[in-house]
């Protein structure tokens, strides 16, 4: 028997959950299908940072700022505690050369509407006493925040169910179904066929293999990242702290880092995130290693070393767990939130790389605006699938 609804959402990580919530809130009849459990993919193998400080000045900042605005009322909107904490975030500058190279970036951020404050070396340790003595400065962004990504997924899912959405776990989308005019017609799943005139694919790194069943290529590849979890311990810092050199390297600016080749090879950059559970998470690494999520202990070891360089005090803190996840990477580091021209009725919302948690609300909102034909909250052109053609 085929089931009929207004829209099918394929994949229920943080992106699919947000979309399902926004669509159901607008009164549409939504069925979400998820191969395993909600949030069992990349969305449970990540940090929970909601940042603008690490975005490229310009459109990317605009997108992130819009999403941050939506987070401010989110816990009330979905009546769920997502451990949202707006404590700001900090970039730690290692050398004077880096600080000088940062001037251009700093003014570009201001022009993009992101307020970033520079803290001179004499004040660094008054703000962050545990940082290594030789850290020369800090950039501080007050609007940045952190949350618990799993709670975000569950919060959206429960609110969507409350709105009447149906969420089918352990249901794998096998093939997209088209009618004779090449319009989307539905989805063939492991649990039977579901029919709908609109289908949104939000399966993260797995989106390309689903969309390929109707002959369309989506340029998203997995970019693996590791995380180290500490035991409960003393307060190292109370907000998110990242090394600055990484941001510069990411955007190809001056002030590159002086690190060993292995660190560059695995894209190791120190990211510190405290949790409300008295422990902390350490990132980060970036490598193209297919769909493998087993931990590479060489990478983890380099991450530990890099973390100690910034926080010597954590040397004797114990590590209780490490894990790896797959960021859905696109070439220009921007998600694809777009219709698919070749298949009317088919939409894609994937490719958020390292920003999917922070960009979940704006993605859900944009998809609902696209499907309902409303004016989008940000221009959709920079997010289109066509930009890769």
């Amino acid at each position: 028997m085929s089931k009929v609804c207004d829209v099918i959402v394929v994949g229920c990580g943080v992106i699919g959950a947000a979309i399902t919530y926004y669509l159901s809130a607008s009164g549409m009849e939504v069925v979400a299908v998820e191969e395993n459990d909600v949030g069992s993919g990349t969305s449970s193998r990540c940090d929970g940072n909601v940042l603008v400080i690490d975005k490229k000045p310009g459109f990317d900042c605009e997108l992130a700022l819009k999403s941050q605005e939506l987070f401010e009322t989110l816990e009330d909107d979905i009546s769920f505690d997502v451990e949202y904490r707006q404590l700001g975030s900090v970039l730690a500058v290692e050398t004077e050369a880096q600080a000088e190279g940062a001037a251009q970036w700093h003014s570009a951020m201001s022009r993009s509407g992101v307020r970033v404050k520079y803290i001179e070396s004499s004040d660094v340790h008054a703000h962050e006493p545990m940082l290594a003595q030789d850290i020369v400065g800090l950039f501080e962004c007050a609007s940045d925040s952190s949350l618990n990504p799993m709670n975000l997924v569950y919060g959206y899912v429960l609110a969507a169910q409350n709105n009447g959405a149906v969420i089918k776990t352990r249901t794998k989308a096998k093939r997209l179904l088209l009618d004779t005019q090449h319009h989307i017609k539905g989805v063939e799943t492991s649990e039977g066929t579901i029919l709908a005139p609109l289908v949104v694919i939000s399966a993260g790194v797995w989106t390309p293999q689903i969309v390929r069943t109707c002959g369309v290529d989506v340029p998203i590849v997995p970019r693996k990242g590791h995380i180290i979890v500490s035991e409960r311990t003393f307060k190292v810092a109370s907000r998110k702290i990242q090394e600055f050199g990484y941001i510069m390297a990411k955007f190809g600016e001056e002030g590159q880092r002086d690190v060993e080749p292995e660190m560059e090879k695995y894209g190791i950059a120190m990211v510190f995130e405290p949790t409300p559970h008295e422990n902390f998470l350490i990132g980060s690494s970036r490598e193209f290693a297919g769909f493998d999520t087993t931990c590479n202990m060489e990478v983890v070891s380099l991450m530990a070393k890099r973390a100690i360089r910034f926080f010597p005090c954590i040397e004797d803190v114990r590590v209780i767990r490490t894990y790896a996840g797959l960021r859905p990477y696109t070439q220009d580091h921007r998600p694809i939130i777009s219709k698919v021209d070749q298949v009317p009725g088919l939409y894609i919302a994937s490719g958020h790389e390292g920003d999917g948690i922070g960009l979940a609300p704006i993605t859900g909102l944009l998809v609902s605006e696209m499907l309902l034909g409303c004016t989008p909250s940000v221009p959709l052109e920079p997010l289109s699938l066509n930009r890769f053609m």
Partner: protein
Amino acid sequence: MDDDLIVCRCEEVTVGDVKRAIEQGAFDVSGVKRRTRAGMGQCQGRTCETLIRGILASELSKRPDEFRLDTVRPPLSPVTFKTLAGGYDE
């Protein structure tokens, strides 16, 4: 089992919390862990996983051995950052 009974000491998760997670859609050990934080603490689920399997079995009318244990995530026993930085095998 009494709902107030503690299943996971490290994260203070009760039988009631686990039952609620199952009610909200958890169907395996990892799903319960992600929803409740059980097994996420210091001991990494060494004691609570067996209990969680038992509750899953009784709530979903299955046998405990039908539930796989959660994936092991290294290190197997806690090591310090210093040891880890010095190379995992040393």
